């Protein structure tokens, strides 16, 4: 048996229903836009705060920690200069440069950088952001060429708070 296609049958296009798909796609889009949240990247600084009782026998090979002193005015603002190892600094980058000179560029095991420790002494009313800036300055620097973090002092701790500080 022979089927004859009429001209009208050949011309007919099968059209997909786009409307439900577009509906769903827009719903998805709205959902993602509504739940989207721009969050700034956060990072951590590890600080060493060993328990007083866990001191045990002090390690003879361990160098004593360098003491960094930060003082505050009555408003809690940082007062320059800051003092490390009896040296005064007028900026945090100057402090970083001093530490680079002091600890050298080697960062392997057994190097001065690996065992270096900084103890932060600060006034109780000093604003916390200055303490973080100081930690930022002593913990390392960004390599200007590669943009990677070059660690400087891995161990940072807070000095016990003194009364009335």
């Amino acid at each position, binding site marked *: 048996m022979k089927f004859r296609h009429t001209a009208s049958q050949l011309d007919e296009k099968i059209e997909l229903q*786009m409307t439900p*798909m*577009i509906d769903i*796609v*827009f719903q*998805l*889009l709205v959902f*993602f*836009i509504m*739940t*989207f*949240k721009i*969050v*700034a*990247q*956060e*990072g*951590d*600084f*590890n*600080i060493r*705060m*060993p*328990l*007083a009782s*866990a001191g045990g026998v002090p390690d003879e090979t361990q160098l004593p920690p360098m003491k960094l002193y930060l003082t505050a005015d009555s408003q*809690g603002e940082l007062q320059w200069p800051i003092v490390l190892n009896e040296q005064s600094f007028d900026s945090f980058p100057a402090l970083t440069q001093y530490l680079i000179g002091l600890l050298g560029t080697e960062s392997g095991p057994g190097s001065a950088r690996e065992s270096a420790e900084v103890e932060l002494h*600060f*006034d*109780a*009313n*000093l*604003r*916390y*952001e*200055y*303490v*973080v*800036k100081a*930690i*930022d300055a002593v*913990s*390392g*620097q*960004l390599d200007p060429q590669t943009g990677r*973090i070059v660690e400087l002092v891995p161990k940072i701790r*807070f000095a016990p*708070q003194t009364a009335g*500080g």
Partner: protein
Amino acid sequence: MRIRRKETKIQEGDLTPMIDMTFQLIAFFMVLINFTQTEQLEGIYLPTAALAKPPEGPMETPITLHVDRQGLVTIGGQQVDLNGLVPHLINEVNVLVIRKKSPSDATIIIRADRRVPAGKVQDVIRVCQENRFDRFVLRVLQSTD
């Protein structure tokens, strides 16, 4: 004169570019969406630092303490002062002991406001130390400069 009636045709716009764009947008938002429970608290402005490292992975037993501008601590959704923090920490220690862990296994994440006096943060750390916690991280915002 006889006017011949024109055949009416439905003008259909080409939907393909629009659908392409919409799918691209969906893909963009799908990739960027983050369903993880953010530990943020409104009203706390973290200090910024260039060298802070993003957490390498989820911490084993993190305890997040938010310290606001006045030095009040928020733990587990409750705002407490320094004395009020102690029962919460004892509770955390008990939970750790039940899980056969010690306070040294937990990490205290301190999210302190940049304007809080640093002595208040130090007080919070001291109270945690008194409850045998000794691992601390200071959480900051990463600055790009």
